[in-house]
């Protein structure tokens, strides 16, 4: 039989390198902009404009209009994509809706006519930003805790159900770490931001990661009752190989949809879909190469200690 679980050191090392790259990106980002990743308006106070002009404008032209209104440091980026000609995103400190409206009018009259059908103005006050960040953090922790309890309950017939729950949660946190690393790297390279959609992606990734892990664990649970005398490492190895067709077929199908949206879908959710893509790959990897080997390592160590 193909020896899969036995090579677990390699998989753990690979995961460590991927997460390590993400952490390096976070540190670089922290040094450069003061936060580990670029934080979007949803989680940080500020105002975001997405404006489409009817004729080409320059970044300096936009900056001038903002400076005239007393805003000294707007972050201006040009938006790329289908139907986004002359579209720009401008981020500033928090301002009231009235002030935002004045600026929009100033852009329209002093710079170039604005297409009102294609503008977006978003403002978030400081208080809500901080609260959302805290709540997002709590949401992830609560999710991890509930999942742990749930798996312990679902696997209550096997010996040491806590190890199953903990391994699944570690794999899930691994995937969350990978997605955060990814957003840190893309934040440095492309300026991608952590927003409410990103949080949605992270939690979806967590859900899929769990699904993959539970499928493998379910097979282990079944095989334990079928072959109670088999060596645990061999049994787990067999369980992975038995479910690997399913894992690959499912992964492939998810990829079909995600890649299609990534290639042909709307520009506004491209980041979201890209994060999902990376997260799903990580999720399948972590359930086969992290969660299950971790379970084996844990069981073995406990056996040796006994």
């Amino acid at each position, binding site marked *: 039989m193909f020896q899969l679980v036995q090579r677990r050191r390699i998989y753990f090392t690979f995961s460590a390198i991927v997460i390590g790259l993400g952490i390096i990106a976070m540190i670089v980002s922290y040094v450069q902009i003061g936060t580990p990743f670029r934080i979007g308006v949803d989680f940080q106070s500020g105002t975001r404009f997405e404006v489409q002009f009817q004729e080409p404008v320059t970044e300096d032209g936009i900056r001038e209009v903002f400076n005239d209104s007393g805003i000294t440091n707007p972050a201006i980026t040009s938006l790329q994509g289908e139907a986004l000609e002359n579209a720009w995103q401008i981020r500033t400190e928090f301002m009231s809706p009235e002030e935002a409206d004045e600026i929009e009018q100033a852009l329209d009259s002093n710079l170039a006519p604005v297409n009102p059908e294609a503008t977006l103005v978003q403002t978030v006050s400081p208080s809500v930003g901080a609260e959302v960040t805290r709540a997002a953090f709590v949401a992830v922790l609560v999710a991890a805790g509930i999942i742990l309890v749930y798996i312990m309950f679902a696997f209550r017939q096997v010996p040491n159900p806590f190890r199953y729950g903990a391994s699944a949660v570690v794999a899930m946190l691994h995937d969350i770490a990978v997605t955060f690393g990814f957003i840190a790297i893309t934040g440095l390279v492309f300026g991608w931001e952590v927003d409410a959609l990103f949080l949605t992606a992270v*939690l979806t990734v967590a859900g899929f990661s769990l699904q993959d892990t539970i499928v493998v664990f379910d097979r282990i649970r079944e095989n334990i009752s079928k072959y109670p005398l088999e060596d645990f490492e061999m049994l787990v190895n067999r369980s992975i190989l038995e479910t690997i067709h399913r894992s690959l077929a499912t992964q492939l199908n998810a990829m079909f949809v995600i890649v299609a949206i990534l290639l042909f879908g709307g520009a506004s959710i491209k980041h979201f879909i890209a994060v999902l893509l990376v997260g799903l790959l990580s999720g399948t990897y972590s359930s086969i190469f992290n969660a299950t080997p971790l379970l084996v390592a844990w069981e073995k160590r406990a056996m040796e200690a006994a």
Partner: protein
Amino acid sequence: MWLAIIVAIAAAALWVAFNDNYPVRQGLDLQGGLQVLLAADVPAEEDVSREDMTAARQIISQRVNGLGVSEPLVQVEGERRILVELPGIANANDAIDLIRETALLEFIDTGSQPLPEGTCVRTTLNEGRPSPCEDEAPAPTFETVLTGGELRNADVQTDSFGRAMVAFQMTPEGGDILGSHTANNIGQFLTIVLDKRVISSPRINDAISDAGTITGNFELEEAQNLALQLRFGRLPIPLTVESTREIGATLGALSVEASLQAGAIGVIVVLLFMLVYYRLPGLLADVALLLYALLNFAIFKWLAVTLTLPAITGFLLSTGMAVDANILVFERMKEELRRGSSLRNAITAGFNRAWTSIRDSNIATLVICLILWGFGRNFGASIVQGFAITLAIGVMISMFTAVIVTRTFVGLVMGRAAEWLRSREWLLGT
């Protein structure tokens, strides 16, 4: 038996899907509009009562209904926030002003002089934010008799000559104050001001206590406006704007069209994959999957789920999980066949053994949905909420279609034709 239920459900779903009484609700990101998140403007340690929030919500609802927006959404989020969504609105700023207006309504004693509408006045009451109108008002300072807080209700009635008038009721305390004031000041004017600006200056004709009428040369519409201002002039709590999103109409439409097409391409590839890889069972699963899509669409319409981009994404991902359930079953069937089981036994074992995986993983996903939903609810992050709702609906429907429906189809087609299939293994994809 199951077949009859499936056919009945499919028929009901078809009916809802093509019934125009159940419109597809498009989210703000699809059709453009304004989203405003308001928060109670009181110190963090101070509690905000549920009743106050509900009352504020109702008042804002009344105000935005006057804007003529189709399907505005006003809901309380968490303990101290109110989310307002106005699809397709053109002038965002006017809408925000209208929502936020925390006008202070006062009845002031202006003695023997009526004041023309729109005049700025000073009053003895100085609570709340300073009014710009008051700053430019000349002396004297009028005495505030009552505020809108003591007013219970106001509506429009017509007298026997068909003239419109405004009838109002006071709270018991307000009635006492008004009673003694009007008894002593018959013939004088009791002027009504909103944010220190005169909206009406009626003469006291009689002593009135807890209920009275304001008459004048009102047009019906004027009277209605006055009643509305009396009733809704005042929010029970001050509100501040925490966040706003103003989305142009075309920005979303282009994006959504492209994403929907892309999703459709992805799903077609998935259907083809299932057909090529699992052959006959794959074909049956494809039929179940189409039924799954139909059921989802019908439920979205029936429950008036607001479709946003993340909501559609949630649906697409749940489609992935529906497919996964069938893959689990079919892989298991193949495994059993390879071990030499009969086709009939392999089918039974495939569904039974795969069920624990499907059940456990789907429950885990539902738990995640619940947490996401709670998170979205507290912070007006309605996009996160939409995602969680469609994903949860999809997962629940998938347990029905991918397990019960596929099983019924497989039992019906393959169970009957087991003998015939034995010599045509290519149809099973083993």
